[in-house]
């Protein structure tokens, strides 16, 4: 009877395709919306992701998320280093500074200052030059997007006027910028994860960053630290917290703290959450409805089978088998389409991050849809009076 159930399902090509498309569309919608959502949320802590080496981030207790900079005194670095279980600790500067471009315009940039000695926390990908080039005097590394975009030079004519309609020239190694009246020389170009902050990112050393920055009593944005062997990051956080009075989080905790902040205080995640929920609902409705309709269309045949001696259990198995096939095939197509979409979207501004959890979640959702749809359908089959066959 399994063969019969399958033949009933695939026999009517048009109907079969409609159901499969319904489920595929549902899977696509759920996966895609969820992946964009995850991508967006991943962006909120892109800086933490890029700064992959530290186990622990130490900061002012009032800091709410990664872009919420509340500097502490430089001496805090030594206090963190003094905590037992800290293998290493380095300073990290992060701040928004104005850069003066060659055409005289100003552009706000995210300036990241790395520990002079170790350059811990550098960008994840270097496109031109090396991280070590930061040790050259006045050296800075700019990010690709910034170099091509907001920091790019407008071509000028002889009189020094910008040529209308000409393409901007990306800045590169050897070009100079001015940060707070101090000269900076580009020694490298890097690629960083996209974040919600759209400003160009400029990497330099901690000392130079603090020179670029306006004079203030507190300049140390974060202390990043590594745990000694045998000490768990969580445990280390607790020790640092109790001994320094600063807040300390593991990388994951800080990422989550950031995500939760964005979830709580910005409308973006809520809007996307709604989109995901809507994707789920619409998908469920489409997939469920098409499958339910399919079973209804076949009700007459189920009735005939019932009259001919097929019990409820057997009919249930037939419907569940049909749902399983529809679910698996539709899910495969939908998820396939979603990851294609992700590939196409990869090089664009769109945030798209397909996690295995999303795949599993979509699978569970589709399974749920199919089970619910088939249970509702089967209800009709089970309650079917075999007497209807003569109608």
């Amino acid at each position, binding site marked *: *009877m399994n*063969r*019969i159930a399958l*033949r*009933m399902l*695939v*026999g*009517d090509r048009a109907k079969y395709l409609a159901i499969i498309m319904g489920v595929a569309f549902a899977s696509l919608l759920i996966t895609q919306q969820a992946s964009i959502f995850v991508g967006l949320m991943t962006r909120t802590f892109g800086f933490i992701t890029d700064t992959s080496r530290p186990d622990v981030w130490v900061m002012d207790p009032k800091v709410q998320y990664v872009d919420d900079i509340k500097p502490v005194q430089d001496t805090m670095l030594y206090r963190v280093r003094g905590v037992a279980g800290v293998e290493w600790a380095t300073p990290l500067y992060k701040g928004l500074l104005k850069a003066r471009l060659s055409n005289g315009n100003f552009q706000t940039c995210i300036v990241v200052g790395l520990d002079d000695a170790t350059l811990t926390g550098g960008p994840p990908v270097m496109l031109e030059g090396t991280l070590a080039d930061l040790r050259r005097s006045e050296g800075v590394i700019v990010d690709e997007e910034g170099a091509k975009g907001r920091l790019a030079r407008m071509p000028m004519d002889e009189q020094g006027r910008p040529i209308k309609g000409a393409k901007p020239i990306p800045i590169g190694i050897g070009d100079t910028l001015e940060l707070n009246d101090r000269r900076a020389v580009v020694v490298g170009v890097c690629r960083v994860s996209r974040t919600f902050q759209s400003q160009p990112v400029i990497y330099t050393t901690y000392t130079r960053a603090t020179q670029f920055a306006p004079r203030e009593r507190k300049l140390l944005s974060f202390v990043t630290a590594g745990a000694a062997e045998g000490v768990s990051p969580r445990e280390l956080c607790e020790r640092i917290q109790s001994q320094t009075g600063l807040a300390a989080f593991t990388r994951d905790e800080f990422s989550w703290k950031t995500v939760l902040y964005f979830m709580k205080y910005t409308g973006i995640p809520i809007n996307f959450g709604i989109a995901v929920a809507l994707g789920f609902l619409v998908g469920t409705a489409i997939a469920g409805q098409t499958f339910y309709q399919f079973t209804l269309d076949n009700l*007459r*045949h189920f009735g*005939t*089978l*019932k*009259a*001919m*001696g*097929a*019990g409820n259990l*057997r009919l249930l198995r037939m419907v569940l088998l049909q749902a399983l096939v529809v679910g698996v095939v539709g899910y495969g197509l939908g998820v396939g389409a979603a990851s294609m979409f992700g590939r196409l979207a990869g090089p664009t501004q769109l945030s798209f991050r397909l996690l295995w959890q999303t795949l599993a979640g979509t699978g569970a959702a589709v399974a749920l849809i199919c089970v619910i749809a088939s249970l509702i359908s089967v209800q009709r089959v089970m309650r079917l*009076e*075999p*007497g209807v*066959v*003569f*109608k």
Partner: protein
Amino acid sequence: MTEASSIAIECKGVVKHYGQGAARVTALRGVDLTVRKGELLMLVGPSGCGKTTLISVIAGVLDRNEGACTVFGEDFARMSARARTRWRGENVGFVFQAFNLIPTITAAENVAVPLMILGEGHGAAIRRAREVLEMVGLGDRWRALPAQLSGGQQQRVAIARSLIHGPRLIVCDEPTSALDHQTGHVIMRLLKNVALREDRALVIVTHDARIFGFADRIAEMDDGRIERIVTDPRELMAGTAPGR
């Protein structure tokens, strides 16, 4: 053969209502009917008189409200729903006015369904189905889908399906109504010559007077009761001709 063992179906005072309260319709108002083994009994009567309801009760797809009814000694009222479903699967063959073939599976697969319901494997069931299709003259069309067959051929497939598991009772509801006269005769000849056997009863609902001649006995129903039972269709004609 004793009297009891020659009886296939015995109904006494069978009453069946549909719906409840004000909407209640009484379709059977006390039906007494006996069908013998090896007999082809036709149920005739005007539309809405309860013919379909009666064969549904006899075939065990509908519960009666009152009265007694045994089919090959079994009383469905004493069986669990599961046991009754099983019993139907083993003992009853169905032929419908609209054929009720599953459109997306082949003729042979349609014919094989009752065997598969009884647990036979796909391959063996299909082999047997092809043999039975041979018996109804469709040996070469076993791969065809129902839509690729004429109405008469589809009804022959349905007859093959009603036979394949060797049921003791075959019920047919208007088996020739959707067919032309000649095809109707082919179907009736098949039912009479191939389906009917010593130990099997056929109950055929019809109001197609042209096939009355195939019946051993004809039970005439009206308004939920059996009015009379005749053996010669001419009696029926004689009785009905003047008034209608």
